[in-house]
């Protein structure tokens, strides 16, 4: 059926405007894909090819050794483990705290509930750079500098974006389902766990994926709180790699590709949730 529709669309008198559209699409498509292509091609080039003019689109002999060599320049394995620890912990923190808080906002009316919902929305606009200095002061008093705690612990106290997202999703679940459970003697936490959360799985997946991407790509946070190289995240490692006095561009491109791969893979697998997350929060990663 889809095929039928497609054919009808193409052979309408609008053909010319459709061709023009495809032309513009292809031009912009090439513009957008060029940096990725250049990244891959450069990552496989040998020293003598990397600065060659005219443009060398593809190396004569792809130099696959660039990848293991690049990754052994710095302890990237360590960085990957560090990043994973932070990312997984913040996912757990966000899922736990945000679903409980979102349940409260979606189901209970109380004096002040409207006010606190407004406060929640307004914290969406609080710029991190404004609180990074006092947070550093607080965490250094607690002796948390150079540990993952400043990056992980706040996740267990909710996040305005995800609370809002989950609240919207919980609101769409009909209340009759819970009423029945409550009649059967289920507690609030039991209804949340057995009724609401299973039904809100897509929203929870969005929160998890988006938290993962944010933690994976976070730079300012680790930069401020993690000073010891053994504690670095991948993005910090990549930035440090770039900062070393002679930049080996083939290595740098190889490392950038490997470091970005997990998020790209998740994007390919869970494109829907991913785009939903962005569309919902509009936030920069």
């Amino acid at each position: 059926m889809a095929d039928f529709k497609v054919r009808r669309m193409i052979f309408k008198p609008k053909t010319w405007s459709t061709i023009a559209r495809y032309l513009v699409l292809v031009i912009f498509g090439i513009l957008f894909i060029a940096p990725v292509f250049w990244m891959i091609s450069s990552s496989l080039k040998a020293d003598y090819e990397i600065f060659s003019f005219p443009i060398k689109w593809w190396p004569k002999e792809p130099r696959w050794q660039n990848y293991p060599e690049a990754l052994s320049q710095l302890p990237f394995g360590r960085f990957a483990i560090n990043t994973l620890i932070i990312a997984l912990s913040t996912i757990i923190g966000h899922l736990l705290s945000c679903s409980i808080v979102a349940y409260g906002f979606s189901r209970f009316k109380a004096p002040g509930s409207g006010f606190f919902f407004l406060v929640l929305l307004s914290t969406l606009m609080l710029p991190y750079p404004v609180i990074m200095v006092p947070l550093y002061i607080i965490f250094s008093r607690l002796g948390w500098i150079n540990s993952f705690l400043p990056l992980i612990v706040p996740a267990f106290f909710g996040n305005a974006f995800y609370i809002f997202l989950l609240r919207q999703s919980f609101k769409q679940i009909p209340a009759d389902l819970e009423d029945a459970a409550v009649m059967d003697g289920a507690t609030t936490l039991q209804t949340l766990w057995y009724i609401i959360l299973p039904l809100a799985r897509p929203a929870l997946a969005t929160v998890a994926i988006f938290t993962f991407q944010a933690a994976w790509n976070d730079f300012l946070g680790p930069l401020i709180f993690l000073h010891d190289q053994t504690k670095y995240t991948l993005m910090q490692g990549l930035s440090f790699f770039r900062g070393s006095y002679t930049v080996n561009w083939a290595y740098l491109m190889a490392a950038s590709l490997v470091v970005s791969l997990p998020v790209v893979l998740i994007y390919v697998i869970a494109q829907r949730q991913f785009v939903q997350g962005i569309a919902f929060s509009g936030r920069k990663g």
Partner: protein
Amino acid sequence: MQKRSRSSTIAFYLSISPWLIGLVAFAILPMLISLVVSFTNWDLISSPQWVALKNYQRLLNDPTFHQSLKVTFLFTFLYVPLDLAGGLFLAMLVRPKLPGIGVFRSIFYLPVIFSGVAFVVVWMWMLNPDGGLVNLALGAFGIQGPRWLMDPNWSLPSLILMSFWGWGRSMVLFLGGLQAIPRDVYEAAEMDGAGKVRQFFKITLPLITPILFFNLVLSIISTFQTFTSAFVATNGGPLDSTLFLVLYIYRQAFQFFNMGYASALAWVLLLIILVFTLFVVRSQKFWVFYIGEEARG
């Protein structure tokens, strides 16, 4: 199931308590600390000295701060409109359900995944004066490209230029809005003989103003906080030509350990963002069009 009773009040405050505690510990308390510290001189090691408004007086006469303001404003005023226009353009482009359109949507969205350091590193290489694709391509036409990020006159334009690669983010937002516009509105306009351009300005644009507004607010807030691209690509240079305000705050706090001055600068940033956000929010009654508003009368 929204009951107003004592038990529901208790349940509400119990369930939002994690967030409330976090709000106090990681937002309100830090803001208060920041305000107090901004009236002191403090290097975190010795005890803080009360200097009253000295830090705020200092920033009036600090040429580096003025430079960072200039850079931040210039970048924001150029970047935000370009980002919105570019995102809307891409969304219009990929809007019809044509064969293969999904591939193009994915391609335009892909760079958003490379956010942060990897995004910047790719473009440092693309804009490399000698081996970067941009100058090689210009060279093929006999044009000698500039030294981009290494030239103080080109460094900020370079950061704006490479930002087109992130248009996919606002594209997704606009696409959602465009798809929500009912088809019959356009059919009616076509019957009345309205051309494509007229349809865009009379139908599409007014109907997506709520999303434009949402996008504008978010884009302003996040662009004033630009940090990673400047830190990684240029470290504020050359000659402070890309010294963004947040980068300057970072330096004062974590390289010079002037916690007091850094806090004062942070409050200035907060005020700037607040003023611009309020201005845009206030302006919405002049240009944002909500469907169903007339119905309410």
